[in-house]
């Protein structure tokens, strides 16, 4: 568990936070300029707070009252930067060994082969960083950080430079790493897509302060407010298995049967399915003779009112968010517990490989 109470002033930013990070997969969400990177730099020891304490487990990393501060290399906190920051004069393997070889042999939690395998970079080892793609660089950067044997891993928007499939692939990798290695992580994001369906807990940061902590769904309305009106797209992310190819691509998404466009996967294949909340139509009575391939019955579990869009959470096996105008929610008279039908066109469902 990482605990901190920090106060730090730099230019216009006055950072003042108190946080407790459990052994989970936590997202630090906030718009740019909120102080997310600064907070990570303080935790890692790259900047020193004006006041406060930082504890990792029962070890004190920083305390202004005792004057103790451990330098970054003795904190046991891994850090993956926004730009991968690979060492240009070393090969990929040289980069991987950099932190690993400094650990005493008995204190190396992972073998290079294990991490290389986990991150899928076995074919890159002899390459120079300059020849790698953005996604490859980030994989090497995370492997390098893991091999240094951290007890906690910080990731600073490692996804911002990646395209959508690479971003999904990377989030999948982080989830796998988190589960396989049981390593607590804090990753910075300013994008709802990288939080919903991935993070276990969200810290919302605004103007140097943590203003809310909770599950992604609890924080969702506030995360939407951080986006410009109309640009907050809420994704529903489901883990699915391809069942049959007879009728488009039929998948089982966490107990919910969905039909996707043909060619979305092979029977038995595990994929990730993403449906934007604004692409789902909600009906209070069962429509007949629909052209859309997915008609799903469910019950309203929760209604989150927002300023320019409201989210209606419908329990249809997994819970799906449907984005509606607040006036629509009122006019339809939607209530929690009400039986509704969801209509989703097959073509409105995106899918990604689940490596």
């Amino acid at each position, binding site marked *: 568990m990482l605990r901190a109470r920090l106060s730090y002033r730099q230019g216009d930013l006055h950072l003042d936070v108190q946080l407790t990070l459990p052994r989970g997969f936590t997202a630090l969400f906030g718009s740019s300029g909120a102080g997310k990177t600064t907070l990570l730099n303080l935790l890692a020891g*790259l900047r020193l707070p004006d006041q406060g304490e930082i504890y990792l487990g029962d070890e004190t990393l920083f305390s202004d009252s005792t004057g103790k501060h451990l330098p*970054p*290399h003795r904190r046991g906190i891994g850090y993956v930067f926004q730009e991968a*920051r690979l060492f*240009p004069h070393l090969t990929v393997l040289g980069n991987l060994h*950099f*932190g690993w070889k400094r*650990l005493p042999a008995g204190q190396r939690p992972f073998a290079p082969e294990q991490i290389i395998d986990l991150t899928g970079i076995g074919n890159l080892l002899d390459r120079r960083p300059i020849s790698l793609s953005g996604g490859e660089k980030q994989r090497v950067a995370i492997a390098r950080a893991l091999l*240094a044997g951290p007890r906690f891993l910080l990731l600073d928007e490692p996804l911002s430079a990646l395209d959508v499939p690479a971003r999904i692939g990377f989030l999948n990798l982080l989830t796998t790493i988190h589960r396989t290695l049981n390593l607590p992580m804090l990753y910075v994001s300013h994008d709802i897509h990288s939080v919903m369906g991935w993070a276990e807990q969200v810290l919302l940061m605004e103007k140097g302060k943590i203003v809310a902590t909770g599950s992604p769904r609890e924080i969702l309305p506030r995360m939407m407010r951080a986006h410009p009106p109309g640009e907050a797209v809420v994704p529903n992310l489901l883990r699915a298995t391809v069942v049959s190819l007879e009728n488009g691509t039929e998948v089982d998404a966490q107990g919910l049967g969905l039909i996707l466009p043909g060619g979305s996967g092979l029977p038995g294949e595990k994929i990730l399915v993403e449906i934007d909340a604004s692409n789902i139509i909600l009906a209070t009575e069962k429509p007949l003779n629909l052209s859309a391939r997915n008609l799903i019955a469910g019950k309203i579990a929760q209604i989150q009112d927002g300023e320019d869009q409201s989210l209606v959470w419908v329990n249809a096996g997994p819970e799906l968010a449907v984005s509606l105008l607040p006036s629509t929610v009122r006019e339809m008279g939607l209530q929690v517990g009400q039986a509704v039908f969801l209509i989703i066109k097959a073509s409105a469902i995106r899918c990604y490989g689940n490596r």
Partner: protein
Amino acid sequence: MTDLLPIVALSLKTALAATLLILPPGVWLGWLLARRNFPGKTLLEGLVNIPLVLPPVVTGYALLFALSPASPAGRFLENHLGLQIAFAWPGAVLAAAVVSFPLLVRAVRVAVSSVSPGLEEAASVLNAPAWAVWLQITLPLSAHGILGGMLLAFARALGEFGATIVLASNIPARTQTIPLAIFTFLNQPGGEAHIWPLVLFSLILAYASLLLNEVLIRRIHHA
């Protein structure tokens, strides 16, 4: 011609010794100016660069004043370390070192500045203490620039005249480097015959140093 070889050898030896002498403080000071902010930094910068703009004769005279056998520092060096600076070979080395020092410091400063501090931070969160960050990240990534600075300093040391003649004097086989020898031959009847080979040699060496420096700078930009 053969009597010129010892002059060339002495010049090379002097310039090399001067370059090696300034390497450790030059690298340290270049790093300090590139990476640290402290009160008096501008004053220190000015002090380092003075030999660049001061007439070398004045630099030589200042050194002579400070280190002549009559001065306390000069006496200390001679009595306790057996080191005679004024009118001796160590004086030629010191004169060349002082005038080429700013060139090395500038080159190191530029080279170290070109290494992203982000890479040093990345190394420090990968279990590397400060000395390892310096040795394995900063130094290798600025090595070309530092080497280029050494070449410039070496070339400048080869050409040093004013400070050398004042501090070390013009003693054949001991402090008479190429520029001093050319000066001497100029004042001798029939000395011109010896001058041309020395001029040619100086030109080749200076040009080669600059070319190599240029090549190194280009490799930095391609890396």
